[in-house]
């Protein structure tokens, strides 16, 4: 302690402790989320398999429980192929941007009372900013691969993300109006006064718009046009293989986890539930996030892919007017 004060000046030891604490928090959050991402792939395959009256992975471990580990090993040791005509620097950084943007949004998510890496006052804005930054990774990947499929995938993705960003932002405005803050912890606290401890009932339209926009934002089915297998092989990451491919894959699933957490925090009351679960303060948030992720799989197993013009129609002609209407109605009710 003395040692620190002498070298770095007074008060530096507290600063160091603080920093260490934050780093430990970050490590814990990333560890837990990466574990969830790995098993999200497993449960996606299982859930969709059972919905299609199949079994899903069954070979690695009992009921295929070790499948994500096997997948990781395979992707890790696979050859990393870089196309000769690719724009190399961009090709290298595109997956990193993608995964970085997805992971940084985790910083502002409060997992339970008092546990948040960065308790900033613009939390919600930060999330929106990061989710749009993530699309840079996709666009750059599409561009730098120098392949027509990935380029088309990248173009589609940029158009889709830009149009659904608006609907998403607008759908969250209702939440901001009701809670009067952009701080996610503040939003959860503000919901305690509402029925069921959530904004779901006053903001049902907002929730609806948000969920659809969130599915489109994360490029999941039925809005998975950027990676439409039947048309674009695999979309923007056609040319990627091995670990870089895994990064894109991870970014998609982290995006799902983040979007589900945001929906749970902004509309479903975050870590608050109908009753307290002792010793596990994050239990309710976890249950809500799991349900929302299950909803993603459920929708994927049910709905076919949208046609591109229908997708744009839905975004611009339905969701944005709905979100605007929601803002007006919320404003009027708030004024009364």
């Amino acid at each position: 302690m003395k040692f620190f004060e002498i070298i770095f000046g007074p008060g530096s030891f507290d600063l160091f402790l603080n920093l260490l604490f934050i780093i430990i928090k970050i490590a814990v959050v990333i560890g837990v989320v990466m574990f969830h991402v790995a098993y999200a792939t497993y449960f996606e395959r299982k859930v969709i398999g059972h919905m299609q009256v199949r079994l899903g992975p069954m070979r690695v471990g009992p009921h295929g429980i070790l499948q994500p580990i096997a997948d990781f090993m395979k992707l890790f040791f696979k050859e990393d192929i870089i196309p000769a005509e690719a724009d190399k620097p961009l090709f290298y950084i595109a997956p990193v941007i993608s995964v970085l943007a997805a992971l940084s949004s985790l910083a502002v998510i409060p997992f339970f009372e008092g546990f948040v890496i960065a308790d900033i006052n613009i939390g919600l804005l930060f999330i929106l900013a990061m989710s749009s930054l993530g699309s840079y990774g996709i666009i750059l990947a599409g561009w730098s691969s120098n392949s027509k499929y990935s380029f088309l995938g990248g173009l589609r993705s940029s158009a889709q993300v830009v149009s659904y960003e608006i609907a998403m932002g607008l759908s969250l405005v209702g939440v901001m109006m009701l809670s009067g803050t952009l701080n996610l912890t503040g939003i959860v606290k503000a919901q305690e006064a509402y029925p069921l401890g959530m904004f779901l009932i006053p903001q049902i339209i907002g929730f609806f718009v948000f969920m659809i926009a969130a599915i489109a934002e994360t490029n999941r089915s039925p809005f998975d046009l950027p990676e439409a297998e039947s048309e674009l092989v695999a979309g923007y990451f056609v040319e990627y293989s091995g670990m870089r491919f895994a990064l894109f894959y991870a970014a998609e699933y982290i995006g799902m986890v983040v979007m589900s957490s945001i929906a749970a925090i902004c509309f479903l009351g975050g870590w608050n539930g109908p009753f307290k679960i002792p010793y596990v303060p994050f239990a309710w948030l976890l249950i809500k996030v799991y349900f929302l992720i299950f909803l993603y799989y459920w929708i994927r197993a049910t709905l076919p892919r949208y046609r591109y013009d229908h997708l744009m129609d839905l975004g611009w002609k339905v969701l944005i007017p709905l979100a605007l209407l929601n803002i007006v109605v919320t404003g009027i009710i708030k004024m009364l």
Partner: protein
Amino acid sequence: MRFKDIIKTVFLTEIIKGMALTFRSMLTHAVTRQYPEEKRPAMPGFRGLHALMRDPRTGEARCVGCGLCAAICPSQCIHVYTADSVEHKKIVERYEIDVLRCTFCALCVEACPFQAIALTEHYEYADYSREAFYMTKERLLENYDKYMGWEKDKEYFRRFWHPVARDFTGYEEQPVFRPEMRSGQGR
């Protein structure tokens, strides 16, 4: 758009119906067969690996080397070589089937006047070399011992290679041009 259609669109009834269906099918049992552990038993009369039938009295092959099977084989994968024995009796020197070329049409089984060749119910004979699929007379007789046997042999021709008209007509109520020909009555 009528009022009902608007309600349908707004509340996504169709999508909810679809999602209910997928949820229900999630709770049903999967139809997957875990193959190497859970094998599907071959249906009776399945056309699998070939076998040369043994005569139950002598234990030798029933084949007399007439070559009808080789003659009718559409993919020409049966090769029969005969020779004269010391007592001037025709003997089958080599009887070979190239299984990789076989289409399992079973015309050879139908053509054989002595019921000397059959298709057994064995179907798992994957291998790494082409030689493994070239069946000689010894291997074909071995197949009989392994996958056919006398008990199955008796049943086999009685049930599956005894073509009767009723085997080739439909169910009882099926409309037919000449009702008197129904169900083997014409035989």
